[in-house]
């Protein structure tokens, strides 16, 4: 496999990041001694932007950097992705939401530490999009991770006047029947609906 081009690396980074990347952050992807000049990065970005014209994605410069986004021309079709199925919330999403509710304000890293599993960008974005969760600040750590908290919309959705109406964690613990098998059943449902949707 030959070494990928600067352009390919930038393209990959923009696609994987899920957030705008500044030229500085793009340069930081390269090991010392191989860091491209800012002008070179900008040039590659411009070439990429031209290549993306007329396609299903476009490169845009936002306040905090460059990002790949779905252009307006394609949006009406893409929007149907979310119209179609009244989605079930995945287990991962429910757990993440519950952790944010009880432990807010909390960073993604902290949620991951509790869940023991990576929390995907798509998942966080989904929660933000639903406006159940918002970013309320940043933790003073490398990368300044965002701190998430639940919103008014979240409370409304679950018919709560305030978070205090959620049962205490101790009460939740008491809910548990040992060896809860709810799991098996749930997974079956999900798999079934997923496979139902995918059958051609």
């Amino acid at each position, binding site marked *: 496999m030959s070494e990928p081009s600067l352009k390919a690396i930038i393209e990959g980074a923009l696609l*994987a990041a*899920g957030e705008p990347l500044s030229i500085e952050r793009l340069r930081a992807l390269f090991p010392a001694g191989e860091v491209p000049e800012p002008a070179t990065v900008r040039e590659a970005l411009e070439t990429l932007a031209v290549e993306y014209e007329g396609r299903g994605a476009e490169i845009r410069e936002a306040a905090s950097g460059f990002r790949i986004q779905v252009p307006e021309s394609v949006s009406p079709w893409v*929007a149907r992705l979310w119209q179609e199925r009244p989605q079930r919330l995945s287990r991962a999403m429910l*757990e993440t939401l519950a952790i944010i509710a009880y432990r807010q304000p909390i960073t993604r890293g902290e949620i991951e530490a509790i869940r023991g599993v990576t929390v995907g960008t798509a998942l966080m974005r989904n929660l933000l*999009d639903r406006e159940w969760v918002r970013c309320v600040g940043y933790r003073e750590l490398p990368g300044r991770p965002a701190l998430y908290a639940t919103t008014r919309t979240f409370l409304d959705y679950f018919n709560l006047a*305030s*978070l205090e109406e*959620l049962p205490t964690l101790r009460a939740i613990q008491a809910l548990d029947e040992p060896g809860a098998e709810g799991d098996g059943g749930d997974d079956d449902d999900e798999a079934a609906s997923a496979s139902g949707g995918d059958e051609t």
Partner: protein
Amino acid sequence: MCGPRWGWPIADGAEPRADGAPVARVRGEAYTELPADLYIPPDALEVFLDAFEGPLDLLLYLIRRQNLDICDIPIAQITEQYMRYVELMQELRLELAAEYLVMAAMLCEIKSRLLLPRPPTVEDDEDDPRAELMRRLQEYERFKEAAEDIDAMPRLHRDVFPAMAATPSVVRPRREVDVSLRELLAAMSDVMQRAAWSSAHHVQREALSVRERMSGCLAAISRERFCAFGELFDPSEGRLGVVVTFLALLELLKEDLVELDQCEPLAPIYVRAVATPAASADEAAEGHGE
């Protein structure tokens, strides 16, 4: 199980040093001889034991290291080596899983059966007392390899990353989702069960009103970068509300999320967010705003 006393002589290769001086000390105990095939310092045994996924794994290691044929294991030799590990582990008082002892007993049994003169007629497939062990070893080895293969396969978030583009112009219809509070609580209870295992986490604290207020204060402060202390309190909430806000601020201070500023004694106190968004993190806030 007959609970044999492991009395195997230490291998011929490991000559005690002539002067009788110990070759190693492990946890204060002197060792005058090294096991012959143990090419690792006894110190490392604990780590070493962790490296094995059980008795089959250890046996496989012994067999493979000496290029022995898995279908024709010299039982006496392997048994002896295996025992030496088990013995050493016991001497070092390492927590030894029961499975290792069961395997030791099994090896001894096979060995003794091989020593016995064979009765002239036995059923065919019972011919070789090693057969069952060899079958298990092979079976285990193929899955051990399969596990390595799976580990080497490109994995999401490690070797490949899902691509994702922003969708600023997409109007997302409010999705009808069917979640009940019960489901949410069940998810939390699952998380707690798991968190109890990993023990590194304490998910106990329960002052939810304080947690909620922490988020509220932090949001207010982040928006303005800083905020007069008094402005965070809403007297109309009454005494309880004020106390909750105060506790929330203390908690934020403790978690290093805000700091207090006062230019001179008796001057107004300001609360400031410790971290400002990284350039790239703007997106998170923006994402929710749209």
